[in-house]
């Protein structure tokens, strides 16, 4: 190689490497808010992860297209495939956490396993983690978990609301009744056990528990026991992926009435009721937001993202339960940034600033209306101590074609749940040697 060519190559390499060597403040000039998407479009849970990821990204696209970003700050995003594996989730987190001018805005792990793995990492890196409707329920105690947000509802709230719903259907009392709890044998399925076990004692119903090994493709033995021997008044299911349609099919196979069968909100999507066909008619599930497209923000997505051909995924996912859940998660992140901007100015927010935004969210009816969320979700308000903010749950029923509400918003037993959150978080604080924050001193 001649000296000239060597010199040219060296110069070229130096030019290419220059941006990497620039100090961080130089890069922070970009008026962008980077929001990563830890998604799963492959593997056994891909059919569920895909519509969620589509809704999550389409919402950001809509905010960019309709509003020009969050108060003028453009949203940028990047997907990382976790395949619902905890190790890959952690790898994705490490890959995306420092991207963008201010680092990752927030992490939405979409997996209880990944959530548990990231609790300490996100706290160290000062990145808020949003676990809407999954993860550890006692993470709602913001005094011990300042970086974790469980809004708008936890598994504890959901279980209490489902039992309240059953109680109302059974004439207001559950004494002497039987409830079977069938659950994915994992941290996810075990999470609400303390609530249903406590309620069983307090309300006097007989509880039978059935863990289902992952992935749950075979449940005949369990359903023979439920449908032919125990014959409970109701069955509650905490399932995910193929476990759900299999359970509905097996319930039908032993003749267990589907209108006495209630699933967790991760067992209440179109993906769960499509394979069993008519066998799923009457099956119920909890939810914390609406299904379908009849909301203003959905029309905005339709007009600004889908019609111009900018939709992330297939059109048939739009308006399904999991697509809408992706959108509501994205909206929570956007509103946390917007709230933070009210205090820190209309510029890209850091993780610490967004954390403040999450902690001071006040989605009252006026704010929900301005977001186009009227009728889609109930109001919520977070605080330093309360990272759940809302906690209300509604029950929906599948009629063979679509989900319909069969209950109003159910307010769980706040006093009991708060007591349980604090017991769990105190235990965690003791194990990790954490001194809980004094919320009276927080501004």
């Amino acid at each position, binding site marked *: 190689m001649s000296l000239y060519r060597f010199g040219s190559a060296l110069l070229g390499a130096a030019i290419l490497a220059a941006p990497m060597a620039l100090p961080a403040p130089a890069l922070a000039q970009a008026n962008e808010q980077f929001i990563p998407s830890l998604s799963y*479009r492959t593997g*056994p849970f*891909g059919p569920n992860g895909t519509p969620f990821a589509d809704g999550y990204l389409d919402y950001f696209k809509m905010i960019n297209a309709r509003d020009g970003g969050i108060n003028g700050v453009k949203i940028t995003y990047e997907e990382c495939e976790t395949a619902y594996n905890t190790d890959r989730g952690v790898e994705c987190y490490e890959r995306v956490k420092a991207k963008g001018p201010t680092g990752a805005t927030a992490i939405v792990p979409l997996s209880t396993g990944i959530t548990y793995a990231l609790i300490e990492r996100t706290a160290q890196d000062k990145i808020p983690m949003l676990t809407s409707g999954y993860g550890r329920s006692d993470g709602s105690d913001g005094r011990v978990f300042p970086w974790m947000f469980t809004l708008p509802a936890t598994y504890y709230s959901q279980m209490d609301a489902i039992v309240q719903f059953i109680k109302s259907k059974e004439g207001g009392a559950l004494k002497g009744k039987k409830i079977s709890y069938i659950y994915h044998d994992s941290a996810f399925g075990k999470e609400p056990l303390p609530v249903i076990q406590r309620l069983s004692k307090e309300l006097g119903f007989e509880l039978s528990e059935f863990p289902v090994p992952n992935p749950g493709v075979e449940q005949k033995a369990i359903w*023979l*026991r439920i449908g032919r021997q125990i014959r409970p008044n109701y069955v509650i299911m905490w399932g995910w992926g193929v476990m759900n349609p299999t359970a509905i099919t097996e319930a039908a*196979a032993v003749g267990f009435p589907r209108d006495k069968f209630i699933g967790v909100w991760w067992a209440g999507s179109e993906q769960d009721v499509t*394979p069993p066909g008519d066998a799923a008619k009457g099956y119920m599930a909890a939810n914390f937001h609406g299904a379908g497209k009849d909301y203003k923000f959905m029309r905005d997505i339709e007009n600004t993202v889908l019609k111009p051909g900018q939709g992330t995924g297939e059109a048939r996912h739009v308006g399904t339960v999991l697509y809408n859940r992706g959108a509501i998660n994205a909206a929570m992140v956007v509103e946390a940034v917007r709230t933070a901007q009210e205090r820190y100015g209309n510029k890209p927010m850091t993780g610490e600033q967004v954390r403040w935004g999450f902690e001071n969210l006040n989605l009252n009816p006026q704010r929900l209306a301005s977001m186009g969320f009227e009728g889609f979700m109930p109001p919520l308000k977070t605080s330093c101590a309360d990272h759940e903010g809302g906690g209300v749950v509604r029950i929906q029923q599948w009629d063979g074609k679509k989900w319909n509400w069969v209950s109003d918003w159910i307010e769980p037993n706040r006093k009991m749940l708060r007591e349980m959150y604090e017991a769990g978080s105190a235990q965690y604080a003791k194990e990790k040697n954490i001194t809980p924050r004094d919320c009276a001193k927080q501004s």
Partner: protein
Amino acid sequence: MDAVLDFLFGPLKEIWAYPTFFVEVVVGGLLTGVMYSLVALGFVLIFKASGVFNFAQGAMVLSAALSFVGFNELGAPLWLALVLALALMIGLAFVIERVVLRPLVNQAPIILFMATIGVTFFIDGFFQMLWGEDVKRLDVGIPKDPIEISGVLVNTFDIVAAVVAGTLVATLAFFFQSTRIGRALRAVADDHQAAQSVGIPLQTIWVIVWSVAGIVALVAGIMWGSKLGVQFSLALVALKALPVLILGGFTSIPGAIIGGLIIGVGEKVAEVFWAEKIGGGIEDWFAYILALFFLMFRPQGLFGERIIERV
């Protein structure tokens, strides 16, 4: 001591007290076992003819079912979708033989096994890319209503599945025992080089056996897909076939059936009557314990060929 006795004999009292329910569990186990056998058959066919443990059998079940539903969704009637899916599985057999197996002729079985792992990931990814990752409903008109026969509850779908599996086994047994190609397949299984030296075309035999395994995968995919919906998890039903193979033997078609029945009944009885005492959810690993127990007495499986090597 009391706890041990209660664990061992307590459930027997329950069985004695509720004999009809016990019969229901056994019948349910038998019918589930037949479904496991459907998947296990594909493994046996390829192992029998080539000595290769085909890791890709689960992926073939998924790809066959995805293609069947995919063609149907594109507007093909069920019979045409079936024909097209069959053609695709046979085409896949040709491609696997030409691209993967032919370059590895006379290599050690472990090399071929590793190659099938590669094939698994390719098939999983390619067919999902082709047909999408959505959960698809598969309805071939098999009724799924529960019926009671002498007080014992069974499901119509499970009975149909048993009939389908029985027919498939009878056909395969006839094919292997009584046809020229079947005998050639067995010759190749015994010794590749010896079979080649007497003029049996190894490549053709491999294409045939992979095609037949593809057809078996299609049948298994339709039956399991009708039950679970057609989705990625279908590939995981292969895990349910492994204890069946360990127990029944890797080279026996009747072994796959008998093994399936024993595993099906064993895991259901264990789950229903014993699981509660140790926290539940035991049927998956209990199937392997059961298979290992049989291995202690019959290392080659109940119906597997005994391998005797001269030292």
